[in-house]
């Protein structure tokens, strides 16, 4: 079972937006820079996140993206499934193979393990870590 880069970077980008937004729109350029990803890639990810309602785009000069719901209402499992598809591929669950019960049990067990995790848990964890000294690059204008 593998998670693709889309799932991994998508969650990082969403958490980055949530962490830096505080209600104000954040530009994709800033998210891309902080996550060390290309803007094109971030745009693809945000299209998926916007369609699924996890982010909203705000137009205008001060425009950008904000969260589409409060962070405590955004389940990490839902975000991951929006980016990656279901935890266990649908054709594994719908086939008539004799091993099908295993995949159903696995999907159920994993969903249970992740069921209560929200974006707010990630933000809380980030706030609890010590603030780092800004690197020299942060001062370059």
């Amino acid at each position, binding site marked *: 079972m593998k998670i693709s880069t889309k799932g991994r970077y998508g969650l990082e980008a969403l958490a980055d937006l949530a*962490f830096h937004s505080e209600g104000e729109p954040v530009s994709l350029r800033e998210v891309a820079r902080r996550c060390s990803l290309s803007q094109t890639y971030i745009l693809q990810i945000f299209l998926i996140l916007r369609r699924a309602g996890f982010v909203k785009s705000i137009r205008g000069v001060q425009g950008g993206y904000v969260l589409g719901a409060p962070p405590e209402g955004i389940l990490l499992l839902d975000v991951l499934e929006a980016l990656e598809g279901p935890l266990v591929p649908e054709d594994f669950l719908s086939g008539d193979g004799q091993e099908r019960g*295993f995949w159903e049990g696995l999907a159920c067990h994993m969903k249970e393990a*992740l069921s209560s995790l929200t974006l707010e848990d990630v933000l809380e964890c980030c706030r609890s870590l010590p603030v780092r000294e800004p690197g020299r690059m942060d001062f370059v204008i």
Partner: protein
Amino acid sequence: MKFSARSRYGLRALIDLSLNSLNGPVTLTSIAERQDIPENYLEQIFSSLRKAGLIRSIKGAQGGYQLSLPAEKTSVGDVLRTLEGSLDLFDENPTGNSHIQQCLKGLLWDRMNRALEEYADSQTLQDLIDDFYRRGTNDFLMYDI
């Protein structure tokens, strides 16, 4: 999330092998036919399983394959690790070390990995077979008896 077809067909073939080996070794061809798995693909899968010691091949006219251990001692986790290479969620380890990356790792990725391993290691081939019987609808058995 991606699982490879190797795991899916591997588990299916092992269930078949277990159910049909009561009277001796089972040929790869018969499993491939019953389960509609391309034979050369199944050969690759069985070669990995044999090297890992999960099945053994019996030579001779009545030869074929057998489970090395009874189904209730064959761990699904071992089968999946053999066929997938590992149960790690990522092909390569995440390199970044930002707060967000650290927190996602601790809260989400590590937890997912643990859940996957826990479940796979808790299941034996016999559990899968029992589960299959409980479902009742299996034309497979009707063919064989």
